C-alpha cells in the first residue's frame, strides 16, 4: 500500500489528491454520527428550506470575534422563502459540543459532536430541505449508502466477471461461444431500461435494507457482462503464454492453473477497470433513488435528496442549495476517474 501511494504520488499528482479525497469522504461517511450536527431525520419545523447559515467573524458593531459565530434566523416571508437574521444575540460555533446521545457505528456512545451551536441558534452549513432537515447532515448519512454501494456492487460484478470470463476464456470452444452470447444479450439492453425492468419485478414498497440489497444485486447484474468480456479476452491471450503451457506440461490441475497463473495476471487490468467502474454503480444508485425506486425517505441517499428538484421549479429556484448532493456525486465520480487513470499509469510499464 505504501509503495502504491508513493508511486501514485510520483506518476500522477491529481490521482494522488483524488485518492485522499476519496479516503476523506469515506471517513466522513463512517463517522457521520459524530461529524453531523443533527440526526438525518430531525425536522426543524420552523426552518423549511432555510438557506445555508452565514458564518460571521464580525458582529453588528464591527467587533471582531476570533471564534466564528452565527445569528438566529427567522422565516419572514413564506411565499418567497425569505429568512432574516436576528442580530440581538450571537451564537458561537463550538467544537465538541454536547447534545443528545448517539451511537457511532452502533458501538461507541457519544454525547459530543464535532461541531455545533448551543442554545437557540442553529447551524445549517448547506441549508435545509423542504421539511427543515439539515442537508449537511443528510449528505453525510447519505454518503454511507452512495459510497458503499459502489464498493459492494463492484465486488460482486468482479466475482461474476472473473468466474464467467475466466471459464469462457480458458475453456474456449462451445462453452465460450455460449457464455459470450449471454454476455452479448446483457450488453444489448440499454442499461437504464434493464435496471428499471429488473426493479419492476419486485414490489415498490420494500424496507430500506431490502431495497439496498436489491439495488446492489441489480447493478451488479448489469455490470458483470462487460467485465466478463474483458477478462475473457485477457485470459485468451494469457493461456497461450509459455508459463501457462509450462504449468500444464507439469501436470498442474486446471483449476490451479487458472487460479494461480491466469487470474492474477489479469489483475493489473481488472483493478483499473474496477476503479473506473465504481462511478457507474454510484450513478446507478443515485438514478434509481432519484426516481423514487431506490432508498426510501426518511433515510437519505445522494440520489433521493435530489428528487425534490425534479419538476418542482419553485423549490429549485428558491432553494438552489438542494442541488448540493449532486456536487458530491460529481466530486466522488471525478475522484474515482482520476484515481483509475492514476492506477492505470502505475501498471503501465511505459510510464515508469
Amino acid at each position: 500500500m505504501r509503495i502504491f501511494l508513493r508511486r501514485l504520488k510520483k506518476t500522477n499528482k491529481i490521482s494522488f489528491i483524488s485518492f485522499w479525497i476519496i479516503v476523506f469522504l469515506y471517513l466522513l461517511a463512517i463517522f457521520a454520527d459524530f461529524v453531523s450536527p443533527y440526526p438525518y431525520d430531525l425536522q426543524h419545523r420552523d426552518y423549511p428550506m432555510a438557506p445555508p447559515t452565514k458564518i460571521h467573524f464580525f458582529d453588528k458593531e464591527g467587533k471582531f470575534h476570533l471564534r466564528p459565530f452565527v445569528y438566529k434566523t427567522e422565516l419572514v416571508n413564506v411565499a418567497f422563502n425569505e429568512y432574516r437574521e436576528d442580530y440581538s444575540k450571537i451564537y458561537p460555533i463550538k467544537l465538541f459540543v454536547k447534545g443528545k446521545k448517539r451511537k457511532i457505528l452502533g458501538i461507541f456512545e457519544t454525547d459530543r459532536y464535532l461541531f455545533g451551536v448551543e442554545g437557540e441558534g442553529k447551524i445549517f452549513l448547506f441549508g435545509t430541505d423542504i421539511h427543515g432537515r439539515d442537508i449537511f447532515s443528510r449528505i453525510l448519512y447519505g454518503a454511507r449508502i452512495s459510497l458503499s454501494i459502489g464498493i459492494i456492487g463492484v465486488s460482486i460484478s468482479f466475482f461474476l466477471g472473473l468466474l464467467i470470463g475466466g471459464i469462457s476464456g480458458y475453456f474456449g470452444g462451445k462453452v465460450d461461444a455460449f457464455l459470450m452470447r449471454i454476455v452479448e444479450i446483457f450488453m444489448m439492453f440499454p442499461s437504464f431500461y434493464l435496471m428499471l425492468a429488473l426493479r419492476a419485478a419486485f414490489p415498490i414498497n420494500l424496507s430500506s435494507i431490502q431495497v439496498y440489497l436489491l439495488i446492489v444485486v441489480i447493478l451488479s447484474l448489469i455490470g458483470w457482462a462487460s467485465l466478463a468480456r474483458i477478462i475473457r479476452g485477457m485470459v485468451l491471450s494469457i493461456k497461450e503464454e509459455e508459463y501457462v503451457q509450462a504449468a500444464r506440461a507439469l501436470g498442474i490441475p486446471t483449476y490451479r492453473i487458472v487460479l494461480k497463473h491466469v487470474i492474477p495476471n489479469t489483475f493489473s487490468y481488472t483493478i483499473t477497470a474496477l476503479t473506473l467502474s465504481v462511478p457507474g454503480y454510484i450513478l446507478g444508485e443515485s438514478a434509481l433513488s432519484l426516481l423514487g425506486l431506490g432508498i426510501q425517505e426518511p433515510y437519505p441517499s445522494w440520489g433521493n435528496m435530489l428528487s425534490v428538484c425534479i419538476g418542482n421549479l419553485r423549490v429549485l429556484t428558491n432553494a438552489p442549495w438542494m442541488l448540493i448532493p449532486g456536487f458530491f456525486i460529481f466530486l466522488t465520480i471525478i475522484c474515482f476517474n482520476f484515481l483509475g487513470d492514476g492506477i492505470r499509469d502505475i501498471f503501465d510499464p511505459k510510464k515508469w
Partner: protein
Amino acid sequence: MRRYVINRVLQVIPLIFGMTFISFLIIHLPPGDPFSKLQMDPQISRETIQQMRKLFGLDKPVVVQYFYWIKNVFTFNLGTSFSYHVPVSFLIKQKLKNTIALSVFSIFLTWFISIPLGIFAAIKNGKWEEKFLSFIAYIGISIPSFFIAMLIVFFVAKTAILPIGGTTSIFYKSATGFEKFIDYLKHLLIPGISLTLAGIGSLFRLMKNNFLECLNSPYVITAKAKGLSMSKVYYKHTLRNAINPMITIFGYELSGILSGAALVEIVTNWPGMGRLILEAVLSQDFYLVMASLLIGGILLVTGNLIADILIAFADPRVRLR
C-alpha cells in the same frame, strides 16, 4: 459486401430472441400473473381479463407464454396497458417519436462539437489548449447527465429564456407548420443540450486519442517527410484513419444515449420512452414495461447494425473478413 450485410442482419435475430426471452423471465420473476392484481380493479371488466388471459396464454408455463407473447408481437399486438386502458403500441408510438427526436438531435450536436474539438486538441497536444480542453472534458465525463439537466433547468428557470417541460406551447394548435416546428425545437433544446453536454466529454477523448495514435503512425510520418502541407497530412492522411474506430463507437454510444436520454427526459419533463417506462414500472404495468424494453433493445440493436454496416463501407478490411 452484400454477403457481409446479410450475415450481419441474420446475427441480429437470435440476439433479439434472447433479449426478449430474458426480459420475459425478468417480468415473470414475481409470483402470480399480472392479472391477479387487476381483478380487484373495478374499472376493468371480468371479460377483458379473461380475454387477455387467453390471448397471452397465462394458464400455461412461462416458456409457452413466451411464444404466445412472440406470436402477438408479430401481429403487432403488444398487449394492453393496465393503467392507461389503451393498447401499448399506441402509447409507445406517441413517445417513441419524441425519444428518437431527442436522441438524433443530441447525437448530431455531440458529434458536430466533439470531433473538431478532438482533432484540434490532438494537433495542439501538450500545449495549454489541449490541457484546458482535456480538463473540461474530464469534468464533463464525471457530471451525471441528470445533474447537468438539473443545473440547466435551474438556470433556465432563473432566466426564463426557454420553455421547460412538454413538447409544445399553449398556442401550438393555432400555429402554422413552421411555427410548430420552431416551438417543438425550442422545447427540445433543454433536454437536447443536457444530453449533448453529457456526451461530449467521452467522445472528445476518444477522438483525441485516435487522432494522436494515427499521428504517430509511419504513413503520417512519410506524408510529412514528403513535404505535404500540414492540412493535407491532417485531413487526408490522419483523419480518414482516425475516424474509423469512431464509427464502431457510434453504435455502442447509442446504448449510453438511450439510457442517458431516459433520465434526462424524466428530469426535464420531456415526454419520451424514459418517462413512459418509469411510469410503467411505478404502476407495475407489465406489458408496457416489456414492450418498452423490447423497443429500447431493438433501437440499440439497429444502431449497432447501422454502425457495423457503415464501418464495412468505410473500411475494406472489415468487409473482407
